[in-house]
């Protein structure tokens, strides 16, 4: 009885701030400016296929890069003991304590035409590169900002693997490559799945990163949605429809992924 009472504020919170806004989004998505029910927003979404494609592609690439960088890093940290590990953890966490916008702006400063890197390049006599305002810069921004969300869940899962299980595998004849392939990696999959979720979803819906580092050339879903609510193209109904479709696609992706990881524990569905 008591425990139920404690849950009440949470239920109210969920109802007011999660369920109700979702209902509002759904209502907006299926209505016109004059509140008549319509499916027009969905049928015309085809024209934004490019934006959808680009958003999911860039988020996908960023997620893959995060896995490629984050997994070895997390693996190394989980095996490491002592001061080095503490230092490395601090370095990974430190940027997260800084303002997101500030972090991204500093990349603008580093990458722009007359920015830090290009000045460095010309100082040593190399030609300047166009880094900013490319898809690459956007992916870089995503990887930089969301990498900790890949490292931390993988780290915590690998760290919890019982060393005796590894020893048992060695004892049964597995060399270190086999131990990784047959034991450590499969056991760390739940962490990888959580990491993918926590990197992919914010990447797909980001608009700050693409605005600042993509320079408006790489329009992403986040930008498109933002324009419908705050920008010149003001149309919350269309914005809601796009948001809804994006959400459904993300949910499908996560559903498929959790299928893969069945029996390995489920990824966190944010």
């Amino acid at each position, binding site marked *: 009885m008591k425990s139920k009472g404690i849950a009440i504020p949470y239920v109210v919170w969920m109802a007011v701030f999660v369920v109700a806004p979702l209902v509002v989004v759904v209502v907006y998505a299926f209505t016109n400016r004059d509140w008549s029910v319509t499916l027009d927003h969905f049928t015309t979404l085809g024209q934004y296929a490019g934006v959808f494609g680009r958003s999911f592609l860039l988020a996908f690439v960023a997620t893959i890069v995060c896995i490629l960088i984050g997994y070895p890093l997390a693996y190394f940290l989980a095996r490491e003991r002592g001061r080095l590990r503490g230092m490395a953890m601090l370095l990974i966490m430190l940027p997260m304590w800084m303002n997101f916008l500030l972090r991204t702006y500093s990349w603008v400063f580093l990458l722009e035409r007359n920015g830090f890197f290009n000045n460095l390049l010309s100082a040593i006599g190399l030609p300047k590169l166009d880094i900013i305002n490319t898809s690459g810069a956007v992916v870089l921004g995503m990887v930089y900002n969301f990498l900790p969300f890949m490292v931390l869940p993988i780290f915590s899962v690998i760290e919890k693997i019982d060393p*005796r*299980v590894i020893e048992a595998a060695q*004892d*049964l*004849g*597995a060399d270190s490559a086999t131990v990784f392939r*047959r034991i450590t990696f499969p*056991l760390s999959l739940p962490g990888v799945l959580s990491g993918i979720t926590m990197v992919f979803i914010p990447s797909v819906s980001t608009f700050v990163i693409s605005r600042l580092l993509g320079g408006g050339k790489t329009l992403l879903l986040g930008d498109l949605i933002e324009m419908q609510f705050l920008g010149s193209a003001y149309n919350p109904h269309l914005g809601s429809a796009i948001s809804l479709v994006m959400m459904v696609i993300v949910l499908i992706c996560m559903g498929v992924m959790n299928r893969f990881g069945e029996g390995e524990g489920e990824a966190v569905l944010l």
Partner: protein
Amino acid sequence: MSKELIRLSDCVVKYDDDIILDHLNLYINDKEFLTLLGPSGCGKTTTLRIIGGFQKPTSGDVFFDGLRINDVPPHKRKVNTVFQKYALFTHMNIFENVAFGLRIAKVPEPEIRTRVEEALALVNLAGYGKRSVNSLSGGQQQRVAIARAIVNRPQVLLLDEPLGALDLKLRKDMQIELKRIQQQVGITFIYVTHDQEEALTMSDTVVVMDKGNIQQIGTPEDIYNEPKNAFVADFIGESNIIDGIMYEDKIVGMYGKKFPCLDSGFSPNEPVDVVIRPEDIDIVPVEQGQLTGTVTEVTFKGMHYDIIVDFRGFKWLIQTTDFSPVGSRIGVKIDPDGFHVMKKSRYSGMFGDYSSYSEEYDELNEDTPEGSDEE
């Protein structure tokens, strides 16, 4: 009996300045059931890990079948280990757990199938192959761990307190089971435990260890009947250990009296420790007693009473089926074969007094196995 299979020669293990193993010498015969027995931190698990290859001795050599194997990694050794907390692969079903070693050895699939089924049948888990690890009880998981090790047909099976996490009844069943498995497959078992009863029940040879040293090696009967020092006498079973003097061969003195015994080979008037097992003491009327004392405590144990008797300030434990009330004066009589005389050692005076009898029992009850007690 059979040929020597493993030899640890002058092995030392140190962490910083902590000496875990102190110049250990041990050889292990083929096909024997050998138990490393001792309290937490005595170095028994470290010894096992050296044989398994998980730990390198700081100095000293390890030989297997005559070859030095110090630098052979675990996956290339012909030994398999059953770990304390099973260490099963939770992402695989039972069949795949057991098949793991065979798959790595690239055994053909049909052979894998028959061998895994055989191994599961050996541990009474036939037909469990498709189950998940988490659906099994602790005892079943432990048997899977045994099957997983044995299926590879190792020459030696190492068992690190494998029954520690099981409840008492299951533990007793598994002791008999393990002995049966060892005889059936006919390989060497090296078993680590802190449970003396377990060691006596299963072993051909018991190695009693303390503080990184071997205290005594022998058959269970030897260890129980002829303990080498006060530590062994106290650790194996219950013992009253009394200061005594060996007047001459077959005459031991304590409390200023002379008693006939069977021990010999000490120098005249050498101070010794005298061990008297609680079950070797007969209670007799005061006038017939070799010694007389006062009963201070009586505990009913089912089969017998544990009574504590005060002999001039030194308290003995006596196990008897005759009830004597607290406060009564009794006489005791000990047959010559009831005395066991030991040379004085660093353990003299540390054990064998039952003044703190009830506390000791509390300690025993608290002595439930914890996780990795020796790292």
